[in-house]
C-alpha cells in the first residue's frame, strides 16, 4: 500500500511539473530545435547490488552481479520523458545454513543461485534545455522475475537433497537519478543509479552506464 501511494505521489508530481511547464508563456528565446527528437534509445551495462527477500538463519542475503539492458523513451515535452526499460542480471550466489533441531547433523547448508530480470516503465524529468549535459530524475514501476535454484548440501553425515527451482514475480516502484552527457548532437553517454523497493526495504540498487541516441 505504501508503494502504491509512493508511485501515485510520483506520477502526480510528474504530471504537475509537466502541466506547469506547458502552461508557461512563450519564452523570448526558444532553445527548442525546429525539429526536436522524439525518441531516446539506449543500451546499458552496470552493476547490481541485490538483497533477497528472505534470509536463512545463518549466511548472507546480498549479492552483486553485472547487468545488461535496453531502454526506449519517448519525449512528452523537452523535459519530460516516458520510458520503458528491460534488464537481465547475472547469476547471484548465496550460501545459507539452516538450524534443524532434531536432525543429525543439526545444520543444513544450501547454495542459492538467483537470476533476475526486470521490465518497467517510468517518467523521467530532464533538466536544462538543449545542452550537452542533462541531469535527470525519474521513477516508475517495474516487474521483477526471480528464478532461484537451491542446492541443499547435507553436510559431512547426510546426503545432499535434490535441487529445487522456483520462479516468482513481483511488481515494485523504483526511483532513478543520473545524467546524460552528449558526445554529439544526438549520441549520448548516460550514467545513473536506480533503486527499487520491496515491502521491507530497498532490494535492488543498480549502477548503470549506457550509450544511446536521440532519434
Amino acid at each position, binding site marked *: 500500500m505504501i508503494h502504491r501511494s509512493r508511485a501515485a505521489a510520483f506520477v502526480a508530481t510528474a504530471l504537475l511539473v509537466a502541466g506547469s511547464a506547458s502552461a508557461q508563456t512563450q519564452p*523570448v*528565446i*526558444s532553445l527548442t*530545435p525546429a525539429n526536436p527528437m522524439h525518441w531516446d534509445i539506449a543500451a546499458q551495462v552496470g*552493476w547490481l547490488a541485490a538483497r533477497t527477500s528472505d534470509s536463512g538463519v545463518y549466511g548472507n542475503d546480498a549479492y552483486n552481479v*553485472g547487468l545488461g539492458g535496453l531502454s526506449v523513451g519517448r519525449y512528452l515535452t523537452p523535459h519530460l520523458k516516458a520510458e520503458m526499460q528491460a534488464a537481465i542480471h547475472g547469476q547471484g550466489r548465496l550460501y545459507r545454513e539452516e538450524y534443524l533441531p532434531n536432525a543429525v547433523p543439526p545444520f543444513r547448508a544450501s547454495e542459492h543461485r538467483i537470476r533476475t530480470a526486470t521490465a518497467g516503465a517510468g517518467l523521467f524529468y530532464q533538466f536544462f534545455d*538543449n545542452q550537452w549535459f542533462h541531469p535527470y530524475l525519474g521513477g516508475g514501476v517495474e516487474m521483477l522475475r526471480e528464478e532461484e535454484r537451491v542446492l541443499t548440501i547435507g553436510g559431512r553425515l547426510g546426503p545432499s537433497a535434490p535441487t529445487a527451482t522456483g520462479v516468482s514475480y513481483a511488481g515494485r516502484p523504483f526511483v532513478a537519478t543520473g545524467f546524460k552527457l552528449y558526445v554529439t548532437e544526438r549520441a549520448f553517454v548516460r550514467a545513473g543509479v536506480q533503486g527499487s523497493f520491496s515491502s521491507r526495504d530497498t532490494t535492488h540498487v543498480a*549502477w548503470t552506464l549506457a550509450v544511446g541516441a536521440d532519434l
Partner: protein
Amino acid sequence: MKSIAILTMIATLMASTALARQVPQPDVWRTFAQQIDVGTRIIIRLDGGERVAATLIHADAESMLVQPRTRVAVPAQRVPYGRITSIERDHGRGVGVGKAVAIGVGSGVGAFFGIMLILMAALD
C-alpha cells in the same frame, strides 16, 4: 517642526537625485549591444529569469539578433532590449568549466564501471 521640514526636504532631494541618475534599461542595453563586435559570445539574462548563452549577430535600435549556443542548432532570434536584465561578455574559451566537469565525471564513471565489469568477469 522645523527639523522635520528640513529632513523632508533632504529626503526629497536625495530621491530626486537618485531618480535622475537612473537611465532606462533598454537604452543601456541598446548602447552596450551596439558597441559589441558582431560574433562576440555573450550571456543574456532576461526579465523572466532565463540565462541564455548566445553569439551576437546584429544589434539595431529596437532589438538584438542573437544565435543561442545550444547542442542542436536553433534559429537566430530577436531579443527586444526591454526584456533584457543584463548582458555580459562570455569569456569562456573552448571547453567550458561545466563541460570539463561533465567530461571528467563521465570519464570517471566510465572507468569505474569498466573496472567493475572486468573484476566481476575475473571473479566468475
